[in-house]
C-alpha cells in the first residue's frame, strides 16, 4: 500500500515536472539554447498565481490560466529582447545570458515580493479524492489534469497543425526551413512562448502544493535539466517519460528512505544515464 501510494505520488509529481521539462526541451530543440532562466520563469508562474488568488480573489483555475498567459508574454519579451539575437554556435553566450536573466528576475522578485515563503490557499486546498483506493490531494489531481491536457494539446499542435509542424521542422533542419519559406525567428518565438507558458503553468499549478517564494525555481531548474538529459536533448516524448521516472524515483527515495535523499535519487538516475546512455532514453539525433 505504501509503495503504491508513493508510486502514485511520484507519477503525479512527474506529470507536473513534465510541463517544465517539455518546455525546456522545446526551447532547446528550436533555439539550441539551454535556458538557465527556466526555473525563474516557473517561479514567476507560481508567484503570479499566489498574487491573483491571494490579493485579487481569483479562483484557482482562472488564476492558473492567467498566470500561464502572463508568463508566456514575459517569455516572448525575453525572446525578442535577448534570445533571438543569439546566433548559431554561440552556445556559451546563451548559457551566460539566460543565467544572468535568471538572476536578475530572481532578485527583482525578492525585491518586490519578499523572500518569505508563503502558503497559497485555494478552493481546492486541504481536500482529498479517492483514486483506486488511494488517497490523493485534490489540488495535485487537478495539477495532473492540467499537465495531461496541456501535453496532449501540445502533441496535437505539434503533429496536426502547420504552426506546430513548423516548430518541429525548424528544430530538425534550419536550412530546409528557410528553403520552404519559414522565418526562423518567428517560428522560434512561437516555441519560446509555448515553452515558457508550460513552465509558468507548472509553477502556477504547483503553487498550492508547495510554499511559494522567489528562490523556489533553482532546485526545479536542475530537475528540469535532469529530465532533458534523461529524455534526450530536444526530445519531447523522452522528456515526458523522464519526468515520470524522476517523479517516481524521488517519491520512492523520500518515502522508503529519507526526504534528504529525494534530490540525490533524481541526480543518481541522471548520472547513470550520462554514464551508460549519454544520448538519453531515445538515442542520438531524435528530435521533437
Amino acid at each position: 500500500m505504501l509503495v503504491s501510494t508513493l508510486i502514485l505520488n511520484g507519477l503525479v509529481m512527474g506529470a507536473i515536472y513534465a510541463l517544465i521539462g517539455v518546455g525546456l526541451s522545446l526551447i532547446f530543440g528550436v533555439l539550441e539554447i539551454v535556458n538557465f532562466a527556466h526555473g525563474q520563469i516557473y517561479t514567476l508562474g507560481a508567484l503570479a498565481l499566489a498574487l491573483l488568488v491571494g490579493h485579487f480573489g481569483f479562483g484557482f483555475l482562472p488564476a492558473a490560466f492567467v498566470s500561464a498567459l502572463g508568463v508566456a508574454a514575459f517569455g516572448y519579451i525575453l525572446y525578442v529582447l535577448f534570445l533571438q539575437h543569439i546566433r548559431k554556435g554561440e552556445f556559451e553566450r546563451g548559457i551566460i545570458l539566460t543565467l544572468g536573466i535568471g538572476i536578475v528576475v530572481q532578485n527583482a522578485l525578492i525585491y518586490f515580493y519578499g523572500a518569505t515563503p508563503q502558503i497559497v490557499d485555494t478552493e481546492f486546498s486541504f481536500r482529498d479524492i479517492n483514486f483506486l483506493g488511494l488517497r490523493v490531494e485534490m489540488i495535485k489531481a487537478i495539477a495532473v489534469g492540467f499537465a495531461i491536457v496541456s501535453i496532449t494539446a501540445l502533441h496535437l499542435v505539434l503533429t496536426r497543425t502547420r504552426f506546430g509542424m513548423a516548430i518541429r521542422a525548424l528544430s530538425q533542419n534550419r536550412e530546409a526551413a528557410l528553403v520552404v519559406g519559414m522565418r526562423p525567428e518567428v517560428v522560434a518565438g512561437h516555441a519560446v512562448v509555448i515553452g515558457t507558458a508550460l513552465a509558468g503553468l507548472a509553477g502556477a499549478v504547483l503553487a498550492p502544493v508547495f510554499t511559494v517564494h522567489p528562490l523556489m525555481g533553482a532546485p526545479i531548474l536542475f530537475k528540469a535539466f535532469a529530465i532533458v538529459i534523461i529524455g534526450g536533448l530536444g526530445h519531447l516524448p523522452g522528456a515526458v517519460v523522464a519526468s515520470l521516472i524522476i517523479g517516481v524515483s524521488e517519491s520512492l527515495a523520500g518515502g522508503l528512505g529519507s526526504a534528504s535523499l529525494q534530490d540525490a535519487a533524481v541526480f543518481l538516475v541522471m548520472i547513470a544515464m550520462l554514464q551508460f546512455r549519454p544520448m538519453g532514453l531515445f538515442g542520438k539525433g531524435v528530435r521533437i
Partner: protein
Amino acid sequence: MASDIALEISDWSVGYLDHPIVRDFSAIFAIGSVTSLIGGNGAGKSTLLKSIFGLNKHFSGKLVFEGKAVEGLSSAARLRSGIGIVPQGRCNFPQMSVHENLEMGAYLLPRAKASAAIESVTELFPMLRRKWRQLAGNLSGGEQQILETAMVLENSPRLLLLDEPSLGLSPRMQAEVFETVNSIRGKGVTVIMAEQNVFGSLMISDRAIVLELGRKFADGPARDVMHDPRIKAAFLGGEPVVETADI
C-alpha cells in the same frame, strides 16, 4: 512588350561572414533557359546559387528577377516572388514523414492551394505517394533528392536553382534527374544548375558558365563550352591542353 529576361545579376559579390567568395559576377538569364554552372571545388557555384535565394551574405551588386530588385528580400519573400532552390546535401526534415515534409514544402501556400500543390507533385513523382508515411530520413539518397525537389516545386517557382541534384545517385537515377529538369524547363521554368556530372548537365543545358576562384571564367552556349579543349581537359576527362601562349 514583355521582357524575355528572367534574372539579371550585376557586379554581384557574395560570401560568408566578412569573406566574399563570388566576386563581381554579372550575367543575364533568359526565361525558360537551362544554365549549367561549372567549376572545381571552391569555385563558388553553391555560394552563387544560395546567394540568389538569400541564404548567405550579400556584399554588393544587384539582383533583378522579372524586372524587380530582390537582393534586399528575405528568402521567404524570394520564394513568394517565384524563386526556389534545392540546395546541395540533405535539405528535408528527417524525423518527419514524407507527407509532413510535403506539408512543410507548402508552408507559404493557403490551405486549399497547398492540397492541390501536394497532389500535383505526387502525380509528378508517384514514389512519394508510396512512401507517404515513411520518415524522410529513412528514404534512399535518390528518394530524398526527389522529395526535396518536390517540396520546392510545390511553390511553382519560375526560377529554379539546383545545387548538385545528381550527387551520390546511381547512373539510372541521375538520368531521371536530368529528365525531370528537362520536363521542368518544358513548363517555362528557368533553371540554373551546379552539377558534378558536367557532361550530363551540359547535355540538357542551353548555356554554361564556368567559375574559377569565385569569378566568371567562361560563358557561352553549352555545346561550345562542352567542346572547349580547356573545359574538356579540366572537367570532362579530355586530353590536357597545352597553351601555346605559355610555351
